[in-house]
């Protein structure tokens, strides 16, 4: 199927609930839940007039679309504009054996073995971070806590020389904004920022990557399976921005949730085996990535609704994770909830590449916090609009430290 086949029809199809909502205005990006509830209640498939796309807001349909990559492909792009959707040097927007090969090469440093070696380093980092927080009266839960580990550790692991952490974060924000629709105010500037990144990458990779780092391994392992350098440079994108902002979002929202639910914090402190269900529960409620898209490769249907070949379908992770058809009291934070089944890391072939690392970062950090923190108190906080990522921009945080034994 060509890109031309994915040209969106603009007229609402007959018999499908149709909405003129814009998902990419600030008010919806920071508080999407009333919009999600409205779309879920309208039916299993809705039509979004602003986009000319179908959308699935309920859990079952999002899950089944994500599970069937042959019918609902990522090959035509998973974003909301043709520039982002045209990027093909990524496992995110490839399928089949080609996808599997990219994923295997780029996944090397995020496997169980290398992560096992990383554990002591993450623990030291978390302990030093917590010690440094103890002298401060007022904290920003985002800048002082949530951003520290993903930015510092991941930037270092990827191993690119001459990139500041601030630059890495800016690329992260822009990388996700660049996925949005062209009508959204953040998209165009973000696409330009990412063009700047591409130029930087052309000049600096692989010449300025640290030996033994992720980037270095990627170029070497890519060459071993016959990738041209340009292709490996494109795949490197998968390390640069998805690895940082998504984890920052989850950690920040996790801090806020524990501040708002001290009973859950007490439970976690008393029983650390709950970390393996607490972290997925945070990711369910946070849903750092709110939505992506897929394209139908043939005339098909979703829940009995006809979907013509070439249609683009929005899959709404953030809405699916709040669907009361699937989750009991979906808006409540319960760290004992069954960790399986939520869509915060996606589903199927394109489930989050960095999940093992993100999960380890969060388990390590919250475990060390549980050793040291009796209570989090949240003051003012605000969400920072982004075309894909729902993340706190600021979180006033004060901490009651546990008494030293």
């Amino acid at each position, binding site marked *: 199927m060509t890109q031309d086949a994915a040209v969106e029809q603009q007229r609402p199809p007959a018999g499908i609930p149709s909405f003129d909502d814009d998902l990419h205005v600030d008010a919806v990006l920071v508080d999407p839940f009333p919009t999600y509830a409205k779309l879920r209640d309208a039916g299993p498939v809705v039509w979004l007039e602003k986009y000319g796309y179908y959308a699935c807001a309920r859990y079952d349909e999002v899950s089944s679309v994500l*599970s069937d*990559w042959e019918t609902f492909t990522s090959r035509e792009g998973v974003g909301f504009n043709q520039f982002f959707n045209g990027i093909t040097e990524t496992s995110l927007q490839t399928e089949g054996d080609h996808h*599997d090969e990219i*994923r*295997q090469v780029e*996944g090397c440093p*995020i*496997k*169980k*073995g290398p992560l096992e070696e990383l554990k002591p380093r993450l623990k030291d980092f978390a302990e030093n971070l917590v010690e440094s927080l103890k002298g401060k009266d007022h904290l920003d839960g985002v800048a002082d806590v949530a951003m520290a580990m993903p930015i510092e550790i991941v930037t270092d692991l990827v191993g690119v020389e001459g990139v500041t952490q601030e630059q890495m974060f800016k690329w992260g924000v822009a990388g996700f904004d660049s996925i949005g629709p062209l009508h959204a105010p953040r998209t165009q500037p973000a696409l330009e920022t990412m063009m700047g990144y591409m130029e930087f990458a052309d000049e600096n990779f692989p010449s300025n990557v640290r030996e033994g780092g992720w980037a270095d391994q990627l170029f070497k392992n890519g060459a071993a399976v016959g990738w041209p350098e340009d292709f490996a440079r494109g795949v490197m994108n998968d390390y640069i921005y998805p690895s940082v902002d998504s984890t920052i979002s989850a950690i920040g929202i996790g801090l806020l949730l524990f501040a708002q639910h001290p009973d859950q914090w007490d439970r976690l402190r008393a029983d650390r085996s709950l970390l*393996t269900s607490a972290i997925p529960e945070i990711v369910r409620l946070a849903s750092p990535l709110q939505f992506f898209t897929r394209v139908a490769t043939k005339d098909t249907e979703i829940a009995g609704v006809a979907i013509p070949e070439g249609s683009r379908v929005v899959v709404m992770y953030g809405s699916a994770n709040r669907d009361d058809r699937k989750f009991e009291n979906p808006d409540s934070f319960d760290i004992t909830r069954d*960790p*399986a*089944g939520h869509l915060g*890391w996606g*589903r*199927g*072939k*394109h*489930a989050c*590449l960095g*999940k*093992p690392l993100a*999960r380890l970062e969060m388990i390590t950090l919250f475990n060390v916090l549980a050793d040291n923190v009796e209570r989090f108190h949240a003051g003012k906080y605000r969400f920072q609009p982004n075309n894909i990522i729902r993340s706190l921009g600021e979180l006033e945080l004060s901490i009651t430290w546990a008494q030293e034994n």
Partner: protein
Amino acid sequence: MKIQIEYGMCDGHGECVIAAPEVFDLNDDGDEVILLDDSPAESLRDKVNAAIKLCPVAAIRVEG
């Protein structure tokens, strides 16, 4: 049919557990698959095939 898992590839996504809970489980740490039955009954073939299709890292192989 005979199932083989490339444990070195597994990221513990647990997609296979959702698709075929009779055949796959996750360890207590939730970061690696446990194969409950390496020669499951023919009646489970569709579920095993679904697990293979869902695995993000193509870590599951089936022979026969």
